[in-house]
């Protein structure tokens, strides 16, 4: 159907207001059902046996004793998940990650699973499974993994993207490169050059809800899966492919999701639960423990990044270069590539070059984490930018404003930008009272910018009008942070009705067409576009029905403020028909009234943010305190401003945790030492100040309301903003994230000693 996505600059009645979310009451009364809150009759408890070794050949698995234990209904290994991936290397990696086939590739890698009548029996059964491992040398550090003598994680890995195919295998799966101009020449024109190396440790999305699902495979080849996921349609495809099921016979229902941030974008335990259910002939509930969540799901890349930036005395950047090495776990990824694309995206550069290396290590398979790969690159670049400004003697905000990308700038990753918000966020930051607030002793202020692409993608929406005039909206993008509220606002806006007349739900995979996942900040952008389209389709029908009721030509009927209006003087005596009045007669005028939409939402506008923060450093202990934090970000159009603020604040808080304390700590044995919330230290309430937000609205020309994605960009600047603030507070440049107290104190002591 023809749908014009162009920005129209209309005035809004509903969009931009802040009503209570439709799923709110369920969530404050404990009634909302998350992954682990659902049960099926006769369900078994599934549990997974995981490798205690970072790298080991699985020589033999003996499950016979476990199978004999009373109450055990199924035991599975990789044999029960045969390879049906048909040459799809990416899916094969997903399969191998779900259940190790020949080698355990990280501490926590699944090697077998059981389904039993209760948790205690399942735990006992795991202890009875005998796995014969041949332990291999392992490597967890990104730089060490690139060394020639490093243990090889996959002997068939030959680096892609090199001019000549390498003769020897290595742990580098791919090299990628972006940029334009001639950096060599550019550096020749520079009066000042900063060159630095940075490291960031691996972090986890840290969602509070562990992965959980209930799987039920029937004898007739149909199956059901209840699961917490960011994309139930994608889970359906993956599970169907890995289990050999027909996609349409696998009905996947997305539960309420207790946080994902990218970590619930691909399958982990779901194919295992389905395989257990198939073998046991009963439903199986599989819930990860927190320890399993850390050891075997999630994390983002650990990185090592070199940055070189040169500028003239007047503050014009002449060249910028970065080499980025990102871990992808034991399977190939494209994380360094994304880092290389985003690194210099905020700036207008004549000469820029970025090179990315994807590095295999014995750590869990890297998953997306909110603007994946961008925060680490921004940390390195924005730290160097700050240092360069200082060396030239220009204010860091002015320096960034002078070099900021704008409409028409060729981005460092290639395309030329349309209208963008980096300049405005910088100007807003410059004029923010925060910038002028006084600082006390041992306090420092830092700022940094961030960029994220934002996605669109496949989207399907159903809008049904009940005979009482109430409207149900069924969407297929999982609601991770309030999108049912924003989409209801959009539908109310289009239909011209009150928000309270609508109820939005997330439909299961059998009730709606395919939807991409809620990732890449696409949820509200894409689904609002489909909602607008569905509403407009419904309005066409409403007009037609009104025309029937009046017995006038449909072309004479327009839709305004929730009413059909017969246009023209000859209809002067026809009073407008409300949606409710038209709906009441729908049974007689052609049946139910609905609007449907399926589309690929393209043109997600890129997003920029600038953050300011004040940090106090205790020079005797290296302890830090966040004193004040301000987020300025372009939303295009904030549909539900409160939830937009929430995204800004949440991303900032995650970035603060990453910057200061969160990290995966591996022992010399390659085992994760802190797989719990006690020692994987995400920020607690008393760690943070209020997080101020300023929403800018620079309309996205490719969305009817000007909406851009808002979910991810807010995690990009904090690492650098805090590093710059710490540097200003303590007088030392921090190049290793997280800036934990021992690292800060060591840096201060080193500086003291000279």
């Amino acid at each position: 159907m023809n749908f014009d996505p162009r920005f129209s600059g209309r005035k809004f009645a509903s969009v931009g207001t802040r009503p209570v979310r439709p799923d709110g009451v369920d969530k404050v009364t404990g009634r909302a059902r998350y992954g682990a809150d659902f049960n099926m009759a006769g369900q078994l408890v599934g549990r997974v046996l995981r490798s205690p070794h970072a790298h080991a050949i699985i020589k033999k698995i003996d499950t016979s004793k476990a199978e004999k234990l009373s109450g055990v209904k199924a035991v599975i290994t990789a044999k029960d998940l045969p390879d049906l991936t048909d040459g799809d290397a990416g899916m094969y990696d997903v399969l191998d990650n779900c259940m190790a086939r020949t080698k355990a590739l990280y501490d926590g890698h699944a090697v077998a699973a059981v389904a039993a009548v209760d948790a205690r029996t399942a735990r006992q059964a795991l202890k009875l499974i005998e796995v014969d491992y041949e332990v291999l040398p392992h490597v967890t550090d990104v730089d060490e993994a690139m060394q020639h003598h490093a243990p090889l994680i996959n002997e068939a890995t030959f680096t892609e993207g090199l001019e000549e195919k390498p003769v020897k295998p290595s742990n580098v799966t791919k090299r990628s490169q972006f940029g334009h101009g001639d950096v060599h020449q550019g550096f020749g024109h520079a009066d000042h050059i900063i060159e630095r190396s940075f490291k960031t440790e691996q972090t986890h999305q840290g969602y509070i809800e562990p992965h959980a699902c209930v799987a039920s495979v029937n004898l007739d080849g149909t199956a059901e899966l209840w699961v917490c996921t960011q994309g139930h349609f994608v889970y359906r495809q993956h599970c169907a492919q890995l289990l050999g099921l027909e996609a349409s016979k696998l009905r996947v229902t997305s539960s309420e999701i207790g946080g994902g941030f990218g970590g619930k974008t691909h399958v982990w335990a779901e194919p295992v639960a389905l395989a257990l259910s198939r073998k046991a002939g009963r439903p199986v509930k599989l819930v990860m423990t927190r320890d399993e969540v850390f050891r075997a799901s999630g994390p983002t890349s650990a990185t090592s990044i070199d940055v070189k930036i040169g500028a003239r005395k007047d503050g014009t950047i002449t060249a910028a270069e970065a080499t980025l090495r990102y871990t992808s776990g034991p399977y190939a990824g494209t994380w360094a590539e994304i880092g290389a694309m985003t690194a210099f995206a905020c700036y207008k550069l004549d000469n820029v070059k970025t090179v990315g290396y994807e590095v295999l290590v014995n750590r869990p398979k890297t998953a997306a984490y909110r603007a994946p790969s961008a925060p680490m690159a921004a940390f390195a670049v924005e730290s160097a930018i700050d240092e360069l400004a200082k060396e030239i003697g220009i204010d860091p905000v002015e320096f960034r404003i002078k070099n900021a990308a704008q409409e028409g700038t060729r981005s460092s990753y290639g395309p030329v930008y349309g209208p963008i918000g980096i300049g405005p966020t910088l100007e807003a930051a410059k004029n923010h009272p925060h910038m002028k607030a006084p600082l006390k002793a041992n306090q420092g202020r830092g700022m940094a910018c961030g960029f994220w692409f934002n996605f669109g993608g496949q989207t399907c929406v159903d809008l049904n009008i009940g005979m009482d005039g109430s409207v149900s909206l069924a969407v297929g993008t999982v609601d991770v942070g309030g999108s049912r509220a924003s989409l209801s606002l959009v539908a109310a806006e289009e239909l011209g009705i009150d928000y309270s007349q609508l109820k939005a739900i997330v439909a299961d995979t059998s009730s709606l067409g395919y939807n991409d996942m809620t990732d890449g900040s696409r949820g509200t952008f894409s689904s609002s576009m489909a909602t607008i389209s569905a509403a407009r389709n419904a309005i066409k029908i409403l007009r037609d029905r009104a025309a029937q009721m009046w017995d006038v030509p449909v072309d004479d009927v327009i839709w305004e403020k929730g009413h059909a209006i017969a246009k023209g003087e000859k209809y002067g005596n026809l009073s407008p028909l409300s949606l409710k009045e038209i709906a009441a007669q729908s049974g007689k005028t052609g049946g139910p009234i609905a609007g449907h939409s399926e589309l690929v939402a393209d043109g997600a506008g890129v997003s920029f943010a600038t953050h300011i923060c004040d940090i106090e450093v205790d020079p005797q202990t290296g302890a830090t305190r966040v004193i004040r934090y301000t987020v300025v970000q372009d939303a295009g159009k904030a549909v539900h401003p409160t939830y937009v603020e929430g995204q800004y604040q949440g991303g900032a808080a995650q970035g603060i945790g990453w910057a200061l304390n969160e990290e995966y700590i591996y022992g010399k044995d390659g085992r994760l030492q802190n797989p719990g919330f006690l020692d994987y230290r995400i920020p607690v309430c008393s760690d943070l100040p209020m997080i101020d937000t300023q929403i800018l609205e620079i309309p996205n020309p490719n969305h009817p309301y000007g909406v851009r994605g808002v979910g991810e960009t807010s995690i990009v600047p904090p690492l650098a903003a805090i590093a710059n603030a710490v540097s200003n507070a303590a007088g030392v440049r921090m190049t290793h994230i997280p800036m934990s107290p021992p690292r800060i104190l060591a840096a201060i002591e080193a500086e003291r000693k000279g």
Partner: protein
Amino acid sequence: MVEVTLWGALGQLAGGRSKVEVEAKDIRELFRKLAEQYPALEPWIEKGIAVSIDGVIYRDTWGKRLPEGAEIFLLPRLAGG
């Protein structure tokens, strides 16, 4: 005829060219012709790549027309959180 800019890794597969000229009216034709002219690109196109037309990124829209004189960039497909 449109001029298409390839990102680093893709350029190497197209014989070291960073820009190639293709006679194509839409994304589908662009992909087909690129695969014909540069067979090494085919597996990448199969895996999925994004096309930037005048700065707007398209991922799955074969039918999107390529306006005369538009700036066309091929980009890797991205993952998000």
